[in-house]
């Protein structure tokens, strides 16, 4: 993710959570958080429980998020320094009376959102937690001419899978599958198809949903066996190597503890060594044992134009 992508991501997140953008450039965003975003991001559970219990109007926090530090500094440096504003009569009176003019303290923390920063990580996590399940309808591409015409829509189960290949090392892949509940057909790169169309949470006019041919559970097993077949065709040299390392290590442990066990004089000592050995073996399995884990990033029900 480069700085531009981060900028776009942050902006989209803030818009999705209905935050109020106070000021922005391609390098920074000054924002007043919405209530939802404040609860999500600022880690102030006590404040919010206080507000909730007293039914108070909350004051949400504002932030200055800088996405490109260098360029932002450059633009700030270019801007002319603001002339101090003329005092209003009230302020003049204050100044005469107290010697100072009280100013509202705008506490706007500034944060650099770079890849790897904890705030960006928090935004990622928040998006993942709040974008898990959707139910959407495709908006018709063309207006039907006849008001009584009705277009058939197919229900799809869309699943974005994360596949983890791990031993002491790790690699991941994203697989996006869509299963038509009408035909049971399974489509790869389903997410790409979704992003190319306009989707809305409401059922459009002049549309009818085709009857489902299969159940959701059936669709799930179709998706899983499809993915399984894909995964079977992969190269598992890494797993074989990990198994070999695992065996080698286990033999090494055996060689280390055997003489110790033989030397052990009493039962108690023997037991102790055996426990230690078991512990070490467990650790090595934990470290090297190869595994492929399939989890789901998010999923949804999509009603798309046409029957397929």
């Amino acid at each position, binding site marked *: *993710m480069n700085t531009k992508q981060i900028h776009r*991501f942050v902006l*989209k997140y803030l*818009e*999705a959570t209905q935050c109020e953008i106070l000021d922005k450039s391609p390098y920074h965003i000054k924002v007043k958080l919405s209530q939802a975003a404040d609860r999500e991001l600022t880690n102030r559970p006590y404040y919010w429980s206080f507000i909730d219990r007293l039914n108070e109007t909350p004051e949400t926090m504002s932030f200055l998020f800088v996405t490109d530090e260098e360029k932002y500094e450059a633009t700030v440096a270019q801007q002319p320094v603001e002339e101090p504003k003329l005092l209003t009569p009230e302020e003049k009176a204050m100044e005469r009376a107290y010697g100072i003019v009280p100013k509202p303290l705008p506490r706007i923390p500034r944060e650099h959102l*770079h*890849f*790897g*920063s904890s705030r960006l990580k928090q*935004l*990622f996590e928040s*998006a*993942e937690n*709040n*974008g*898990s*399940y*959707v*139910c*959407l309808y495709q908006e018709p591409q063309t207006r039907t001419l006849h008001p009584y015409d009705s277009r058939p829509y197919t229900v799809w189960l869309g699943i*974005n899978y994360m596949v*983890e*290949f*791990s031993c*002491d*090392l*790790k690699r991941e*892949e994203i697989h996006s599958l869509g299963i038509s509940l009408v035909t049971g057909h399974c489509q790869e790169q389903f*997410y790409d198809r979704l*992003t190319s169309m306009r989707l809305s949470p409401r059922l459009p006019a002049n549309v009818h949903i085709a009857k489902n041919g299969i159940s*959701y559970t059936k669709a799930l097993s179709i998706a*899983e066996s499809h993915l*399984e077949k894909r*995964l079977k065709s992969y190269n*598992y040299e*890494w*797993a074989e190597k990990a198994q070999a390392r695992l065996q080698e290590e286990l033999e*090494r*442990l055996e*060689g*280390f*503890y055997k*003489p*110790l066990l033989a030397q052990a004089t009493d039962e108690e000592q023997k037991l102790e060594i055996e426990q*230690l050995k078991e512990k*070490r073996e467990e*650790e090595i*399995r*934990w*470290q090297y*044992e*190869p*595994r*492929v*884990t*399939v989890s789901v*990033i*998010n999923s*949804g*029900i999509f009603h798309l134009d046409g029957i397929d």
Partner: protein
Amino acid sequence: MNNRLFTTNFSNDDTHQKPIHPAVNVSFQREWFKELQQRIEHNGPWDQWSMFQLAMEAREATVIHSFDELLCLRSLPSIEPMPHQLETAKRVLNEMGGRAILADEVGLGKTIEAGLILKEYLLRGLVKKALILVPASLVLQWVRELNTKFGIAAVAQKKSHSWGYEIVVASIDTAKRDPHREVVLATDYDLIIIDEAHKLKNKKTTNYQFATQLSKKYCLLLTATPIQNNLEELFNLISLLKPGQLGAQGEFNSNYVADKRLPKNEEQLQHILSSIMIRNRRGDGGIHFTKRIVRNITLELSKEEQALYDAVTDFVQQQANQDGIDISSILSLVTLQREVCSSRDAVFLTLVNMFKKTAEDSPVRARVWELVEVIRAITSNTKAEKALEIINECEGKVILFTEYRATQEYLLQFFEKHNIPAVPYRGGMNRGKKDWMMDIFRGRARVLIATEAGGEGINLQFCNNMINFDLPWNPMRVEQRIGRVHRLGQTEDVNIFNLCTKNTIEEHILHLLHEKINLFELVIGELDHIIERLESKEGSIEQRLAKAILRSRSSQQLHEEIDHIGASITTYQKDKINN
């Protein structure tokens, strides 16, 4: 799912396992499906399409495409690791399975290497829970480095609930004690880092026993001491990491050990070691240090100062020759002499304390008072004048070290009078104040007056001038002082000014440190091993010096005594080189 033991053994309704290859199974997680079905049943609540897309975008940005490419670099804008550090991190991750001894020579950045490895594992989700065991004095430094340099939310263990955090830094001495012991031993740690691991070389110690009982997936042992020198210790350390790597104890002894310190089949041994230990050396290519330019400035004491020095020396000799005097009082007496060489304020404070402590009718009291009278005559400080001169000639910032609080206070006032902005730094300050002082020094102050060199957090690569207002007797402390400015990241040659007063013990000390040990030109990192070995055999250098000073009747005799101490250090130095 990687942070638990037996991940592959559990199986329930939410997970479905299927074999896909003789070497590996695939498991499908299905928890999400139940949730989806429930939402279908209740027709909601549904998430926003835009959030759904953002979630995908976030996962796509963080997906780990390959087994071995380093991910941590792009998320660490605040550090730029050296090539040898990156190389080390890669080897540990990809070739050593995450269990290794990092044995770089001092100052090459073992902490950075360990930080890189930890960060990489965190980013890959292979480590969630990590424990970092370090000497108590380094806990905060580790936490700060991990927080500021690596953006890792490490927490110093302070209360028993601290163990609940994901990444905890603790001292091993605390961790092994009840009630912590139980908690720590009951936790499975994805990664354990042990700093100063050479302290675990003896398998009979409680620390070693404790370390063997920890549950860990990956493990890094950090040490700067070349453990190859003692084979038994080497074996113990490796048994902690990978038992059996060198065979069982018996095999090891017959295959590799000729004598306790003498290995046989060395080539083979080195080969095995290289699969578990990485030791970068200064001499290796790519690691560049700037030069040290040392200047010794000998100063003549003013008439009044010399009078005080002579009076104090008389007093010290007299006191020391009393019967039944113990070593600690000898040390404090000699301290008086050293303080005179620093500032009148330092010696005054000690004398006043001494006066308060002695009984009212003791004849010593009168003697002490006489000395205080001599102090009154002194109006200027020769060294301070010289220091001022040096600072005015130097470009850029200067760090000045002194051993004494009173001298520090005096110098602060002195510099203020001469319009040089200076800030103090001492061990007793709390963390926040230390940081504040550092910030001021980085900003508008020109001079930092420090009384402590060791300890955490003073890395002053931006400053390349250093004044030793007085010299500590322990060469290690001198080295620590220099190490504050002369370290990786220093881009300029480092100027070191040693202020030394003529006809005093200082002259002898400088003679020992500079000419005998050749301290200032030593390769960094060599010294600690030499001193460690020497002190384990012959007692601390400070004590030996103090005894020599009080024993000597004449300057000539003292000179010889000090030469003798110097010679014993050089012997160890030669030993080291031959090794």
